[in-house]
């Protein structure tokens, strides 16, 4: 039995075979009393989504994407441009929905022919084809 930081009882998920338990040395707040001790064991694997876990080969695409995302976020301080440097960015073809009808038609085609859809926009589809 494991207790999350919110105090709710949880069992270790069986699909997390490679979990690593890290003990955090946290000073005990007086207001929480003895119950706080039960929260010290902090399993970092619970923070890792199931899709990233598994063999290194399985996690490679998501791992790389996660690293790229973190790099993007952490580098935000040096990113961006001044308003007067946006001439290229303001071109219609630089907009993410520069071809809305074409993208909608593509979403409909692939929604009806593949198991997974969405990403660019909300999932669903309003179509009985899948």
């Amino acid at each position, binding site marked *: 039995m494991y207790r999350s930081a919110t105090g709710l009882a949880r069992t270790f998920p069986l699909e997390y075979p490679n979990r690593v338990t890290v003990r955090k040395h946290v000073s005990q707040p007086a207001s929480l009393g003895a119950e706080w001790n039960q929260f010290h064991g902090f399993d970092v694997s619970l923070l890792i989504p199931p*899709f990233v876990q598994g063999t290194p080969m399985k996690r490679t*695409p*998501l791992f790389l*994407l996660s690293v*790229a*995302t973190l790099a*993007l*976020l952490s580098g*935000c301080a040096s*990113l*961006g*441009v*001044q*308003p007067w*440097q*946006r*001439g*290229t*960015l*303001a*071109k*219609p*073809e*630089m*907009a*993410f*929905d*520069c*071809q*809305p*009808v*074409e993208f*909608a*038609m593509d979403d*409909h*085609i*692939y929604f009806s*022919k*593949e*198991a*997974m859809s*969405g*990403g*660019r*926009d*909300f*999932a*669903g589809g*309003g*179509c*009985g*084809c*899948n």
Partner: protein
Amino acid sequence: MQLKKNRSGLKRALLASGCALLGTTAEKAAAAPGDWNFDAGLLYYTEVDGITAKEPELLARRDFGGDAYLKLNLVVDSLTGATPTGGMPSSKSQTVTGPSGGSSSSQGAGVTPVQGGFHDTRKAATATWDQPFAELWHWEASGNYSIEHDFKSLGASTLFARDFDRRNTTVSAGVAYEHDDVFPIGGIPEPLSQVPQSSPVTADRGKTVKSVLLGLTQVMDHDWVAKLNFSYGDSDGYLNDPYKVVSIINTHLGGKSGLIIPLGPPLGEPISQIYENRPGTRHEKGLFLDNRVALSGDVLSVAYRYAWDDWGIRSNIVELRYRWAFANDYYLQPHLRWYRQSAADFYHRGLLDSDTIPEFVSADYRLAAFTGRTVGLELGARLSGGRTVSLRIEHYSQGGGSDPHVEVGEQTGYDLFPGLSANIVQVDFTF
């Protein structure tokens, strides 16, 4: 008067810059209040021995001033042709019973059974209100309705976005709700019951789809903007395809034609079919990364999506577009899309007659492991008055593997993944 006009032009240019960050079109920012802009497209999609679809679509956009817009989207989708039933090929001709239980068609020996004579028309309408507020915020609300012969859908969504860091970063969050009604011809069959159904369970069933979309748009530099979306979808209700079946094949040594005493069906022969059954819930998650990079007047689009669900399906998409501008007002845009998915846990190409029928089973090829490839080219031109016209021609194909579990007897000689080869032609006109 002239000063006022210039200020208005500057405001539009700044709005255009802001819109690029928000992922909205800059074209619409150039419109004046009261203006309507239209984007009309016609899609022709045809599969070899499969479905043919003709889909006209119109997107109308009215400028209400102050960067507020009403968007109306109308689609009519006409489908004809044939679609795989999920059944397995046979050495003999097979009869495929229609969804009504009455109409049927004969399938040749050795071919993947398809439900022929398919004809449906879908009509869909979407209205979206899109406006900024409180300087750095942006709000969008949308409602949609669609109806076809055996399906009806009603949905709504809303999305909020906020700009940060001189509008270089935009964070967005939205939710959507969709309710669908399924009322198949002949009614809802009893899952896992023998085909054809003796009597439908009920005339119709419903399902709901709740979605969450979180987005982060970041201007990387003056030539590059990136977008990262996380999506979550929760489907609940009737998720079966009422027209899909699963073949059960013979595993006993059977007879061969020419024998004086027939000993039964040949080994591997489909001897019966049952209706599929899927779980009543599905949770999908996806990460979508999109990029626009300007390269000396051209634009490179690179997108990647990883999606996964609790049905055991994992999928990857890599999509590339390169917009090569030439002769001032023309462009050529090659398009490559590569998609791969793993099979759902309950996907089985067929069942053996010695198998215990599982609680959930489907032979729908869309739940199988396969790879999809799209190769296309688009030619576009900018006309006078801000109008544009484009034509794209693409080819989409699917290839999948077999299922060793049912490679028994005569099935070893067949291609057990039906495969798909489709051509896509689309013309688009904005004015």
